[in-house]
């Protein structure tokens, strides 16, 4: 049911944009007001969430060591999986953020008669996850051609490279396919992997469906539903938004407003959702700390003042026995029994 709700929600959003953008005068609402609102909510919410996290300290050094630590000279440390210097932490984080290192470790367990448990390497999630994320990143960067005037050489080159196979007119982008295939995998995995299906929430299906709809409307707009898709008018609006002088010069097709509206919804949804893993991955204490907690003291700003049960109290309680057993004591026993 949860995935069905996600579809319903996205369909409703599409209808709102479709019908709404047909009402005279509402183009400015969907083309200007909503995008400004969305970017403000996105940036404000994003910064707010990170600041909210940052207000809490990291009281203890809780890195997860995934390799040999630096200890004795003759034992080779694993600098990437168990970093002790800042440079090594940066390298570990880079691997984590850029290559999804931890997910690459993934295994799949099966239980057979015996009982016998097996662990097989399982890299599908890693592969499709990586494909989705990199495609998405490139798509976002590519869209800068609509916001920048003149278009920097690098972005024009990226656009060219992404469409170099020249399939269809205008040429299909490989990353569009990568994004949609990746999303399809992530979605069907949620439905068919028994464990993931059981634990998935509406919050997990919705962003996938939303992103899928964004991808599909984008492809439709470029390849199939070109009525009213005058790229220059769209770019004029986009650059206008970025220069605070938005202009909607001609009638732009509804498909564009649907695409844009869904993107705005994504931006608004982002800071309040699990999508914040974009920032969280950098701040995870099990990954971004050095494993040198015995070498350099980590400070806890709220370290409470707690004293151990004192040795004096201990000796007071057990002095007789200690003396009898020949264990040295601080205070010789008084003739009378000491009540601690």
């Amino acid at each position, binding site marked *: 049911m949860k995935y069905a*709700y996600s579809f319903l929600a996205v369909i409703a959003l599409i209808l709102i944009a479709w019908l709404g953008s047909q009402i005279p005068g509402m183009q400015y609402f969907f083309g200007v007001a909503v995008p400004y609102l969305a970017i403000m909510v996105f940036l404000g919410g994003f910064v707010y969430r990170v600041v909210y*996290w940052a207000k*809490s300290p990291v*009281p*203890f*050094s*809780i890195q*997860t*060591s*995934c390799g*040999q*630590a630096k*200890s*004795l000279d003759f*034992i080779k440390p*694993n600098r990437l999986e168990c970093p002790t210097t800042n440079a090594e932490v940066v390298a570990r984080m880079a691997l984590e953020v850029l290559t999804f290192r*931890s*997910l690459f*470790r993934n295994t*799949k367990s099966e*239980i*057979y008669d*015996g*009982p016998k*448990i097996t662990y097989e390497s399982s890299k599908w999630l890693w592969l499709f*996850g990586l494909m989705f994320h990199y495609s998405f990143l490139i798509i976002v960067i590519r869209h800068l051609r609509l916001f920048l005037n003149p278009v920097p050489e690098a972005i024009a080159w990226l656009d060219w490279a992404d469409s170099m196979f020249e399939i269809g007119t205008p040429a299909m982008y490989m990353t569009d396919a990568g994004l949609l295939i990746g999303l399809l995998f992530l979605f069907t995995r949620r439905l068919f992997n*028994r*464990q993931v*299906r*059981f*634990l998935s*929430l*509406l*919050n997990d299906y919705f962003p996938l469906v939303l992103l899928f709809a964004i991808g599909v409307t984008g492809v439709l707009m470029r390849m199939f539903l070109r009525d009213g898709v005058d790229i220059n008018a769209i770019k004029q609006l986009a650059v206008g938004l970025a220069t605070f002088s938005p202009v909607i010069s001609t009638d732009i097709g509804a498909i564009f407003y649907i695409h844009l509206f869904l993107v705005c919804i994504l931006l608004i949804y982002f800071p309040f959702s*699990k999508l*914040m*893993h974009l920032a*969280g*991955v950098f*701040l*995870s*204490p*099990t990954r971004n700390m050095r494993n040198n907690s*015995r*070498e*350099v*003291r980590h400070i806890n700003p709220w*370290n409470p*003042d*707690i*004293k151990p*049960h004192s*040795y004096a109290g*201990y000796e007071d*309680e057990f002095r007789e*026995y200690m003396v*009898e*057993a*020949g264990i*040295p004591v601080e205070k010789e026993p008084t003739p009378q029994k000491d009540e601690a």
Partner: protein
Amino acid sequence: MAVAKLEQLSQSVVQGPSLATGAIPTKDWMDIPVVFKPGNYAFPAKKDKVEYLNSQSGLHFPNARDWSPEDDDWQLPENWKEIIINGLRERLEKFRSLKIFMDCCVRCGACADKCHFFLGTGDPKNMPVLRAELLRSVYRNDFTLAGKVLGRLAGAREVTPEVIKEWFMYSYQCTECRRCSAFCPYGIDTAEVTIVIRELLHLLGIGINWILEPVSNSNRTGNHMGLQPHTFKDNVEFLADDIENLTGVRINPTFNRKGAEVLFITPSADVFAEPGLYTAMGYLILFEHIGLDYTWSTYASEGGNFGLFTNNESMKKLNAKMYAEAKRLGVKWILGGECGHMWRVVHQYMDTMNGPADFLEVPKSPITGTVFHNAASTKMTHISEFTADLFKHNKIKVDKSRNDYLNVTFHDSCNPARAMGLLEEPRYVLKHVVNNYHEMPENTIREQTFCCGSGTGLNTDEIMELRMRSGLPRANAVKYVEEKHGVNMLSCVCAIDRATLTSLMSYWNPNVGVCGISELVGNAIVLDGENRAELDEGLRTLL
């Protein structure tokens, strides 16, 4: 509690209706209530233990009472909801990890089948992600906009007594081994989550006796076995007697001796019960052999720290004894014995909580002159680091063949592996003392090691079936090398392991024994002036 017969349990883990083996519950997890019945919960802490702890300065253990998880009414204090929400707010403000781990999980499910509890029980709420969702759902409800607006649609739910019961059930079916955190793309560590859940439950007077009694014992007597100073000394001396019988060499360990160079602290279980006793004999033999100037302490006679399984205040209070005693005795540095969670505390918490230990010196091996720079601030060195260094410098005279009656494998304990990175040192030591050695499959060792199934104070007998289930992944890997290579000894560097793996092996792999690394070292050492008979079972030989 009677434990299921091996055949029954073997069938049950494979065929029983469970998410791990194929059955999907028809209801949403939020609609499945927990049911407590004998054998699936650890006994609650006794009222007097909770009251004792509450009376100690710096500790807060309110709402002591007699209760049972099987009761319908858990006699929660009147304002329990307020206590929980305020407690959660306070912890969110204290731990960035908690905020991040509450907000960032994408429920990719990579952690799901990494948990030994999930593999052994098939209970969906034992998937690390869902275990964290038990708290996350409440967090969403009270601390996030989406949860406040959308409620259950956004995966939020109000905290109810049923939720509290669920927290109790599943935060005590997690051994905080951190295996999930190694696989999580965001490094989300379920241990951080269950630590917080357990802390919150203690605010309502909910805890288990197997943890809180050791905590109060450690506080009062210095060790969680509750051994009083004279008994502790006696126990160690009995071990010296045994060594004399076996080798003809008399060892005279000292206690609470001021001016010793090194303070030696190990889990008290090592001087209390088999097979830890043999590990302790190994320490005694090793220190005698190299002539180490060291002392035991009866006041700081516990390496382990059940405070880690309780709350950070208890952890700090118990741990503080180590430095306090080192200072009182005027030693130069501290040497720590083989223990898992003790080393998590020493490595990741001790210096922060109770340092700086500027009255100590950077550990330097008096035998080899090696300075342990990796312990420059904490001033505490692991016995495996210390011993590996001794072997590197050829300072130990061994006869490896004395361990030839064994075919050994090594179990990486969760904490030294994933909270320290101590992987090669024990192997280096093993290489020098045994001839027959085989590793378990790679997905079950080193940073991917499986828990013994009974860590974090869950090594209590009333949940034996649960322990045998959660220990299955470890036992299964041992069985693999037993069948393939004839392995008959599972070595480890953890006192809880020594106790719990023994039960686990006798259930799943009865022909495999359990030992500490130092036992194998001690057995292989050729002592000066020894008069040792042929010992068929090493230090375990009964004369």
